[in-house]
Structure formats: structure tokens, C-alpha cells
């Protein structure tokens, strides 16, 4: 039996779908989540209300949300950046880790220097580490046409092992020599802490402002510069790009490097703005890199929108921490995030196709 519904390819994508589809996606995710909540014997309206309360509705809630949103904004931009050239970078996680390593090293080593110099150095070091790590994937892709999804994913595990090694497996520079029982990272001196600003009643971390500025710049780069034009042509048709004299391999490597730099700066914000220590276990548990992919998908791979989508997802994460307890399993927030990704991907299909009800068969000639 054929389904009475079928998908028809859209010839053009109406502009309004750009915001309608994400809204419908989130709505769909909340509906599906409600089913899950009902099945586990909870009142979905009550749960959602509590999530809003503890994610967005108070000063402390907002502050926590921005803390969670900042790394996600960067990993979201990281995933969005390569999508523009038709490459999928799953490696935001690992690039985030090495960025954190680099920034922590600089933050500790430069103790005594003016805060602004340290801050700038941490950002640059995070970007450098992340971009070098991602460029590895880009070079493999450009020179040997290896699948970037696999290589970037594998490098995540390597970066994770590196974190463990630096803190648990060796007496590295980053390990706190005073931590005896359970090894921890060396705390950053106060002078290396990134500032937070009180704007009205909100507390905005410097890292979040940085995300907004960088997001806008990346969007400008893709929309208005030669570089962005070349990237979009490569994504559309590599053959056309080569035909018109674009250096496709170099461009692939540069875009990977930029993408990695974004995740790396995310790692630097995590160390400089929030944890003030390289927290090997905490970073791996947070999974910012992977959640960043959800952020990017929901932002429809627009790096600037990713910053704001990160607030929604960050709020959800933050609420999850606040509500965690016997009557609110930690897995619920993960489930909701998974559902959001699921509906965002489904929404992507709606961007490209529309649903039609199949014509009645009565018009078709019938066999005698």
C-alpha cells in the first residue's frame, strides 16, 4: 500500500520558513517530550513550567543559563561554520578540549601579566590549538579525501585521552601538585580570570559577548566576503568551484581551521570565564561539542543564530542541573535535547519538501 501522503520537492524556499521551521521543531520536540513525560508518570505542563522557572525566570537562573550557553554558542558556531562549505565537523568536542588545554596553560604560565594581555593570549592560544587540531581533519580531507565525519570524531577520543593523561596520567604542568587523593587541574590565578559584566539586572560573562561579536563576524564573512562566496560555491558544486579558479583544497583546510578555532575559543572561555581550572572530567561529561551540533542544526547553520539558540539549549541544560533530583532524572534533559535535534532534522526536510495528500486513484485508467 502506498502512503496517502507524499513529499514534494520545493522549488524555492520561502524566507519565512527560516524561523517558522525552528519554532515548529521546538514545538514538536515539546509535544514528543510530553508523551515521554506522561509515560513516566509526570505532568508535562508542570515539568515544562519548572524548566522555564529554573532556566530563564530569575537572575541566578539567567546567569547559569549564560554560563551553559557560552560554550554551546562556540561549539554551535563551530558546527555551523563547516556546514557552509558542505563539510560536517563532528570534532567540535575535541577541538574544544585542546582549546581549553592551550588556554589553561597560558592562563597559568602568564601569571602576573596584565589581565587584558592574558585574556587576549588565552583567546589566541585556544583558537590556535583548536584550529590546528581541526586543520588536521581538513588536510586529510583535502589531500586524501578521507571522510571528515570519521576523522573528526576519532580525534575527539584522542583529545579526551589527552585530557585524562594531562591530569590523571602524568605529573604535567596543568596538574595541581597539591591535589593528592583525586588529581585535579592547577587552578588559574585570579589575574587570569575573565571578567563578567553587570548590565541592568543581568550578569553577562565576557565570553558570551565575545560569542556575539564573533558570530556576527563569521556571518558577515560567509555572506559578504569573497571567502564566503567561494565557500558557498564549493558547497554547491566543487566542480564549478574548480572551473572558476577557486582553490578548493586550501579553502577546505581554512574553513576547518576556522571552525576549530571557534571551538577552541569556546574551550578558552570555559577555563577563563567559568571553571578557572582545566577540569578533565567535567569537560568530558559536559559534551559541549556534541550538543553544539544540535545548536547548529536548530540555528539552520547560521553562525549568528547559533549564539541565540545556544541560550535556549543552555537554559534547558541549566534547568536540568537545577532540577536534578529523585523526581527529575538527569536523563530527561538529554532526552529533550535529543528530541529537539530529531525534530530539527525533520524540520530540515520540511524546508526542502512539502507534504501533499496523494491524488485519488479514480482518475487513473482501470484495467479491464
Amino acid at each position: 500500500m502506498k502512503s496517502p501522503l507524499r513529499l514534494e520537492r520545493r522549488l524555492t524556499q520561502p524566507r519565512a520558513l527560516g524561523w517558522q521551521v525552528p519554532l515548529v521543531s521546538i514545538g514538536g520536540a515539546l509535544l514528543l517530550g510530553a508523551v515521554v513525560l506522561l509515560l513516566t508518570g509526570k505532568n508535562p505542563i508542570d515539568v515544562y513550567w519548572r524548566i522555564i522557572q529554573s532556566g530563564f525566570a530569575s537572575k541566578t537562573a539567567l546567569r547559569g543559563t549564560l554560563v551553559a550557553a557560552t560554550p554551546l554558542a562556540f561549539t554551535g558556531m563551530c558546527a555551523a561554520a563547516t556546514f557552509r562549505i558542505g563539510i560536517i565537523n563532528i570534532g567540535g568536542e575535541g577541538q574544544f578540549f585542546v582549546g581549553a588545554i592551550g588556554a589553561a596553560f597560558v592562563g597559568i604560565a602568564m601569571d602576573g601579566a596584565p589581565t587584558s594581555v592574558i585574556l587576549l593570549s588565552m583567546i589566541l592560544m585556544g583558537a590556535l590549538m583548536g584550529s590546528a587540531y581541526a586543520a588536521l581533519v581538513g588536510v586529510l580531507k583535502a589531500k586524501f579525501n578521507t571522510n571528515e565525519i570519521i576523522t573528526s570524531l576519532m580525534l575527539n577520543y584522542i583529545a579526551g585521552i589527552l585530557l585524562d593523561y594531562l591530569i590523571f596520567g602524568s605529573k604535567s604542568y596543568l596538574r595541581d601538585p597539591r591535589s593528592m587523593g583525586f588529581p585535579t587541574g592547577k587552578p588559574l590565578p585570579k589575574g587570569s580570570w575573565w571578567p563578567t559584566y553587570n548590565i541592568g539586572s543581568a550578569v553577562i560573562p565576557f565570553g558570551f559577548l565575545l560569542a556575539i561579536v564573533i558570530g556576527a563576524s563569521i556571518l558577515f564573512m560567509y555572506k559578504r566576503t569573497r571567502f564566503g562566496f567561494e565557500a558557498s560555491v564549493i558547497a554547491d558544486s566543487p566542480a564549478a568551484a574548480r572551473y572558476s579558479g577557486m582553490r578548493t583544497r586550501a579553502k577546505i583546510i581554512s574553513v576547518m581551521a576556522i571552525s576549530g578555532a571557534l571551538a577552541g575559543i569556546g574551550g578558552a572561555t570555559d577555563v577563563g570565564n567559568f571553571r578557572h581550572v582545566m577540569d578533565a572530567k567535567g569537560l568530558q561529561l559536559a559534551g559541549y561539542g556534541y550538543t553544539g551540533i544540535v545548536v547548529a542544526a536548530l540555528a539552520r547553520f547560521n553562525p549568528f543564530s547559533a549564539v541565540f539558540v545556544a541560550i535556549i539549549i543552555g537554559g534547558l541544560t541549566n534547568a536540568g542541573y537545577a532540577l536534578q533530583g529523585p523526581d527529575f532524572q538527569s536523563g530527561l534533559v538529554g532526552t529533550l535535547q535529543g528530541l529537539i535535534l530529531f525534530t530539527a532534522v525533520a524540520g530540515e526536510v520540511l524546508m526542502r519538501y512539502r507534504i501533499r495528500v496523494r491524488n485519488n486513484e479514480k482518475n487513473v485508467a482501470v484495467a479491464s
Partner: protein
Amino acid sequence: MSGNIAVKMSGIVKKFPGVVANDGVEFEAKVGEVHALLGENGAGKSTLSNVLTGLYRPDEGSIELHGEHVTFSSPRDALNAGIGMVHQHFRLVPSFTVAENIVLGEDDGGVFLNTADVVARVEELSLRYGLAVDPRARVWQLSVGEQQRVEILKVLYRGAKVLILDEPTAVLTPQEADVLFTTLRAMVAEGRTIIFISHKLDEVMAVSDRVTVLRGGKTVGTIDTAGSSTRELARLMVGRDVVFDRVQRKNPAKPEQHVLVTVGLCANDDRDNKALNDVSLSVGAGEIVGVAGVSGNGQRELAEVLGGMRATSAGSFHVGGVEVTAGRVRRSIAAGIAHVPEDRLHTGLAASHSVEDNLVLKSYRNNPISIRSILNRKAIRSNAETMVQRYDVKTPDTETPVRLLSGGNVQKVLLAREFSAGPKVLVAASPTRGLDVGAIETVRERLVAAADDGVGILLISEDLEELMSLSDRILVMYEGRIVGNLSTQEATRESLGLLMGGATVGGHTA
């Protein structure tokens, strides 16, 4: 009377999003005739044949086979009813033998192949219809013409009474096409029906008994070929008079004033096999030099080398006496070589990009299109508006993605961009292939106008009529070499065809 009607399709309507591909088509083919289905691209020929072979279900209308109503829900149904299709793009497994390919997909209930049986039957069929091919040979060893015979044998083997051939001569030399026509005559003599899809008028005149002409998804009419002419068919197909005679040039070519010279060019194809072998040629200012050859004999690689997309292994090429660094697109562009590639929508253009973006695909690096690496959207827009007007591109606006334009308008966008750079040389690979008659006319006019302005044109084409009506001189490529250099006066279909097939013509090889 209805006893000798093999296929009757009435009131066929098939809609796709945004288009009515078939809008009440009437079609009728008799037993024992070659019936041509003629029409421009987009006239609905392919849709109609897909309806007949069960790939599409019509939205309205009915199909009768030998006087009985039928509905097909899959190509298998149609095949079981005796309708077989020979596709333009072969559907063969290269590593299988001919016999294995022929029985592929056949469901006789058994587990094992009885190869000896199949071979015997295939041999019998090929003998009967003059479809010479060794059933034990592997498909990759066969020439294109032989592969097509395998496709025909495949449908004959399944007992098809009605055979649909979709542009079967597109890949053949004129001689191979003649052999095919003989085969088709033999098949209709036995009471089979051939539906021959084409947009080549001469062929239709040569091979078919009757012609049904489609235009804009509707049947224009069915006429006897015997009482008709190519001119009449062209008029029916396009809806107005079309003149395809030898073009008149305003300014004569200056073949001695070389704009493009290649010396001993050698290059490999994508699989690293030698594709160009010691190619030396010259194109004069305002000269149109045709390059004939069966597809896959190095023409594409030649165009790519000149466009800078392919590295050379030996030799050099020069524009206006200056050597151009090989394998660098930007060097070729800077030297003044414009390139219209074979695959215009995916190589020549970025299909999902807008008309305006595509018009600056090569000039986006230059002031004022971009200033200090920032794109100047205003300049891009006004450039597009000028081009769209000058080249008469039919598009809703300049932001429309080129993939939504018709084939002719896609090519106009490409030509507009290539000509606007003020080239010295234009390398055009099959610039009219797949276009409808009206668009072909426009493209040819543009090429001739450019030549009149002194641009040297290397016109690579498999369409001999086109080469003979446009070129000042015709080169023939065979296995990566230039095997013929004929003035248009001395070139004939036969002499070109022989050279294209690898034969040497005394005195003509250059």
C-alpha cells in the same frame, strides 16, 4: 482496423509540481512500423515513454495495447505485457558478461543460471536482427555501439513486441547509426513496433514511417514521414519556421592570425589513462574550428586543459603568442580563454546559486565586483541586470537559482558570463546539446557573433550538422589524437564519420 494498432494512448495527463509534462497527449503506433516521437526538450517525450513503460502512472488518460485496456504499476508489468525500453544511458553491469546482463532481473524461479541456454538464445537473436555481439564477452570490453546492442537484445530476450528507443543515436557514429537503422527495419518487418524518440530531424526522416510531434506537453500531430520534410518537422516541433543553413558571416575568419596554438599537448584522464596524445592545433582570429569525434576520444580533456582545469603531461598552449601555464584556471582566464564546459549546470555554473552570483563566478575577485575582498552586492546586482537584458535571459529575477531556469536560459547565463570577460578564445564543449531548437538557434547566433568580433572559437561537438554549418574548418579526434583536419567544403558526413571511427582517409590526415 484496430487490429493493427499496437499501442494507443489517449488523453494522457501527467503533472509534476509546477509543470504539466503531458497535457492530454494522443499517441498511436501501428504494428510493424517505426514511429518517431519528436519534440524539443521539455515537450513531454520522456514523460510519455515513462508512462508507457510503467515508470509513471498517468493522472488521466488510458493506454490500450492491441485493443485492450491496460494499467501498469511498474516497468516489470509493462515488460510482461511486451513493452521494452532501451534507455539512452545504458543500464548494464560492466563486469558481467553479455549473457549475464541479459538475464539479469529475469525471474524464472530457478536458483542457477543456465548460461549455455541463454548464450544460445542470444546468439540466435543477434543473428536474426544483425545485432552482432559475443554473448560471452564482458560488457566493459564492448564499444558503446555494442553495449547498445546488448540493451536491445535485453528487451528482445524478454519478448518485447513494442520497443521504445530513447535517443539511441546520441552515442553512435553515423556509420553505427546506419547499422542500427537496418536492425530496426528488420525488427519491424517481423511485426514488432519501434517507438523512436529523437529530436534530430534527419534521423527521424531517415528511419521512421510516421512521426508524432509533441510540443509543450500536447500532441501537435501525427504525419507520414514519406510526404514530409525536415523543414516541416522543424516547424511543427518549434511552432515557427527555423533556418539551419550554413551561417552567413559578417567578417571572414583570419586563420593565419593565430589566437590559440597548442603544441604537442598530452594529458591523462581521471583514471590516469592517456587521453590526449600529441595534440597540435591552431585557431585563428574570428575562426570557428570544429572538433568532431565520438564522445570519450579526448575532446573533454582538451577543453579542460585549455580551461586550466587539467594538468598536462607534455606540450604547451599559447594565446596570442604567449604561453599559458597549464593546469591553472586563473592563468587560463587571465590569458583570455573562455570555457563553456560540457556539464554546464554543475561545472559551468553553481546550480543552487542565483543568476547574479553565477554571472560573477569568474569575476568576483575583481574590482568593482569585490573591493578588498568584500563583495559589492550593488555591483553584482547591476552587472546581472545588464547581462540579463543584453543576453535576453528569461528569469523571474536575478536572485533566482539557475537550476530553476530552462536549459536554454542556463546556457545564456553561462555564455553571458564567458563573453562579458572579453575573451580572445572560446572553447565550447557541446554548447547546444540538450537544448531545444529555439535555444540552439540563439546559442549558434551568439557563437557566430563572437567570431565576427574576432574571437577564435574551438567548437567541440558530436553534432555533425552543427559542425558543418558553423565551422570554418573541422578537426577530428580519435583516441586522443587529431586524425583529420578538413575544410568545411571538403567535409562530408561520410568522411567525418570514417575518421571518427578510426579509419584514415588518404591525404586528409594532418
